């Protein structure tokens, strides 16, 4: 098949993917999205002949727009624009998960420092303040006192970008020093790992130690439901273990899997390409005699 890879930076994850695709003899078209323009009815980017386009944009804004562009052009793309739109924004993700009945931390969105402070006081201390767009644990705050809350809200309000005035306040979930990352394709787990550390943020990007995790039935069910809630596709579902079961705090739509591939026995890029092949076969136009 001919596979387009939308990118602006080739990470180790993309190298793993490119290596697996080429090894299987697929025709790979790397498309550096910085070098092209995307019009209402066409582009100079080599999208048209692709059987499937894989969105691996590092920048969320590019990912959200270009998945829409591909769908408008009639080019099959993973993940879908709908999935990208929901996963790119933590408020949308929380709403989608809650609407589908997937356990997720209690969350309030507020639009002024004053109403955000009220929400924080309602949760009590500690609670969590996150940017609605962002990743790798950046600009996440564990708010432990009223004075800290006031300072963080003032800083956020002066950061400049309007998105920092969308205050995403969340309950602080006590977790056993680790959280869980499950890589799944259309809700079916490929592999999973725990991310452990002394810091309250245990992201692999923050230096959390990673270990393979066997997915139990409860986790598999929640991953399937979370995937459905955000529109499916190749996803990284992040969950925390609580006394009453798992709670899903994030779903990633341009998921990184280098750390997972190193932590587990599964050949992750091979499993991803298996899914890309089946997805391309499903989206291919039927040939009739």
């Amino acid at each position, binding site marked *: 098949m001919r596979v387009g890879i939308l*990118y*602006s*930076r080739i990470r180790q994850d993309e190298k793993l993917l490119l290596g697996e695709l080429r090894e299987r003899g697929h025709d790979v078209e790397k498309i550096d999205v910085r070098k092209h323009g995307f019009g209402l009815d066409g582009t100079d980017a080599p999208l048209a002949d692709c059987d499937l386009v894989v969105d691996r944009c*590092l920048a969320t804004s590019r990912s959200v727009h270009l998945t829409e562009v591909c769908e408008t052009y009639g080019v099959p793309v993973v993940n879908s624009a709908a999935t990208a739109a929901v996963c790119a924004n933590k408020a949308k993700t929380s709403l989608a998960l809650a609407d589908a009945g997937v356990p997720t931390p209690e969350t309030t969105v507020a639009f002024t420092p004053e109403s955000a402070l009220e929400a924080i006081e309602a949760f009590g201390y500690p609670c969590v303040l996150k940017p609605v767009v962002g*990743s*790798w644990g*950046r600009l996440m705050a564990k708010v432990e006192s009223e004075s800290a809350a006031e300072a963080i809200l003032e800083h956020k309000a002066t950061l400049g970008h309007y998105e920092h005035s969308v205050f995403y306040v969340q309950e602080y979930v006590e977790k056993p020093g680790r959280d869980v990352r499950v890589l799944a394709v259309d809700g079916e787990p490929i592999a999973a790992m725990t991310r452990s550390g002394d810091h309250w943020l245990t992201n692999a*990007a923050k230096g959390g130690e990673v270990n393979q995790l066997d997915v139990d039935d409860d986790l598999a069910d929640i991953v399937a439901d979370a995937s459905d809630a955000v529109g499916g596709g190749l996803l990284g579902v992040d969950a925390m273990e609580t006394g009453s079961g798992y709670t899903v705090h994030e779903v990633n*739509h341009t998921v990184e899997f280098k750390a997972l591939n190193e932590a587990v026995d599964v050949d992750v890029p091979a499993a991803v390409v298996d899914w890309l092949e089946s997805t391309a076969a499903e989206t291919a136009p039927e040939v009739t005699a």
Partner: protein
Amino acid sequence: MTACTECGADVALPDDLEVGEIVDCGTCGTELEVLETAPPSLDRAPELAEDWGE
């Protein structure tokens, strides 16, 4: 080996070099983006932006 665009030191490159990949200069630590692979060509990589990441 290709010269770092910032400090001029030789930069070690992997055999499976990809256009778009980022390599670090071992001397000055600058992140360099691979613009071409044959022959290798490097330039200073874009700064991290807020919406980057998975």
